[in-house]
């Protein structure tokens, strides 16, 4: 599996909106040539103004606009740098001559694929994408329009890589999440919520890709504690209106082995879900 992904021709160009002939190669973290593996995704043109989602329910006047390099730097300062290895923005080489828009390339590190092990790494990639797009986008546009496509590469300690599909939902720019006034308050609130559900908090962290993003790992003493409640727990942690631009929730069994991981970035519109095989509905998750 890891070795058989082929080199891909580009597939998406004909549907792309004619874009400014902006050619930016902002490279952070020593990234060299654009990854030549599988192109993953792209977003299309001509969305109606009402098509974007506002998860936060509120909008900021505007976030500071930034050039690509500065936008990436700010995003990286607020995420897990041990996981996000390289980020760069560039026109795909195969389309440079046609003046296509930029792609976002993110390389992340994952320890393994077991038990949904890539999910945290891809969430970190989502955080970088959402923050970077927000800083580069217009104040009234659609964040999905900032990049022509997204490409994730997951690296493993043994040197192997896996390409994974990126994407970008139709999300409004300038969402203003109703975060706590301090990380300490956010951590205490998450701690209380976990205990309300009978869970044992293990790790709680607050990342700041732009606004706050919540990272939670908790132990489930007995599976019956969480039966049917995973989605409800996620909603409680998020708050209403949403307090966080991103959330990562991992539940481990009493041996420390993951049974479920949920991750979302609400500037990207990406909701990710891994559940130990056979436990999906029992835990209370919905997927297609």
């Amino acid at each position, binding site marked *: 599996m890891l070795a058989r992904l082929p080199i891909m021709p580009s597939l998406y160009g004909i549907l792309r909106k004619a874009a400014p002939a902006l050619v930016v190669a902002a490279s952070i973290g020593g990234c060299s040539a654009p990854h030549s593996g599988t192109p993953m995704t792209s977003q299309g043109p001509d969305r109606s103004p009402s098509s974007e989602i506002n998860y936060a329910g509120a909008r900021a006047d505007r976030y500071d606009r930034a050039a690509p390099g500065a936008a990436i730097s700010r995003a990286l300062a607020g995420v897990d740098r041990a996981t996000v290895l390289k980020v760069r923005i560039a026109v795909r080489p195969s389309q440079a001559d046609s003046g296509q828009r930029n792609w976002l390339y993110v390389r992340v590190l994952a320890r393994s694929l077991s038990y949904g092990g890539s999910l945290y790494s891809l969430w970190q990639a989502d955080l970088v994408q959402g923050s970077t797009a927000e800083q580069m986008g217009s104040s009234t546009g659609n964040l999905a329009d900032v990049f022509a496509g997204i490409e994730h590469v997951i690296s493993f300690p043994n040197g192997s890589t896996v390409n994974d599909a990126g994407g970008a939902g139709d999300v409004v720019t300038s969402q203003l999440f109703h975060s706590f006034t301090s990380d300490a308050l956010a951590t205490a609130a998450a701690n209380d919520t976990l205990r309300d559900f009978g869970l044992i908090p293990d790790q709680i962290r607050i990342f700041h890709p732009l606004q706050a993003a919540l990272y939670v790992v908790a132990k489930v003493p007995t599976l019956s504690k969480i039966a049917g409640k995973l*989605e409800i727990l996620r909603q409680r942690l998020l708050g209403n209106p949403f307090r966080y631009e991103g959330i990562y929730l991992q539940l481990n069994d009493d041996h420390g082995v993951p049974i479920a991981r949920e991750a979302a970035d609400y500037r990207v519109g990406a909701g990710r*879900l891994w559940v130990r095989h056979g436990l999906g509905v029992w835990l209370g998750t919905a997927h297609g």
Partner: protein
Amino acid sequence: VVSMPKRLCGRRNRIFKCCAVLGAFFFILGAAPQPAFAVSEVYQAGYYLQYGCCNAHLDGISADVEVTNVDPADHMCLIWSVLGYTSQGTANLNDDVQLETGDVECGIATSLDGSCSNQNSARIRFVEQYHLQSYVCFPHGHFSIGVADTFSVRRTSTTTTIWNAYIDGTQYEGQNAFDTDNIQIHGWGEATWAQGYTKACGSNWGGTGGLSSLRRYNVDGGWHDINTATEETGCFDVSPLTNNAFTVWHTP
């Protein structure tokens, strides 16, 4: 309990006590919520084709999807969609991939994968990828009751393992690692619960969606109407596949 081996129950005068304890244990085990192993996580009803069906590779599927009413219960999502799926068998579940696109509305207490149809039972057009045993959903605007959108997933060349999703002709997310041969394509309605395991179909929800212009894609041969396919049933009612169209519905 009656056939319990003697060694588990010890001496004769302890048999009653021992077996009672073991009986209680197994009773509790049976009564406690159990993982839904070997039970479908969602109800899915519609039609599908799989490799070998059509004297041609299955390289995609398309349908015009029109939802005419949708009323999910609080803890469930209702979906009308098309998808492509490939499995390499159970040896490595990380190899299974899927790409799905369609309409979804979830009840107020849940969402699809955490990002689609989150708030106020939003009616969302979505693309969902499945890879590395994980789902990820992206919202792409809203759908309207009684208005059809064209959803499709397909590959664009025989040399690629990537399938892309399209909504009304606009390309959205893709998914790599599709097999060439071992492909299934589905057009269906789905009801997926997020509040624990249940076998019950339930009567507190309803919805109707029609899939028309149902077509399969072959890179070399183009689009072909689907008028013969295997029906899959579960919870919903499904109309016959006629003039490459059918309806999937559930009445409260």
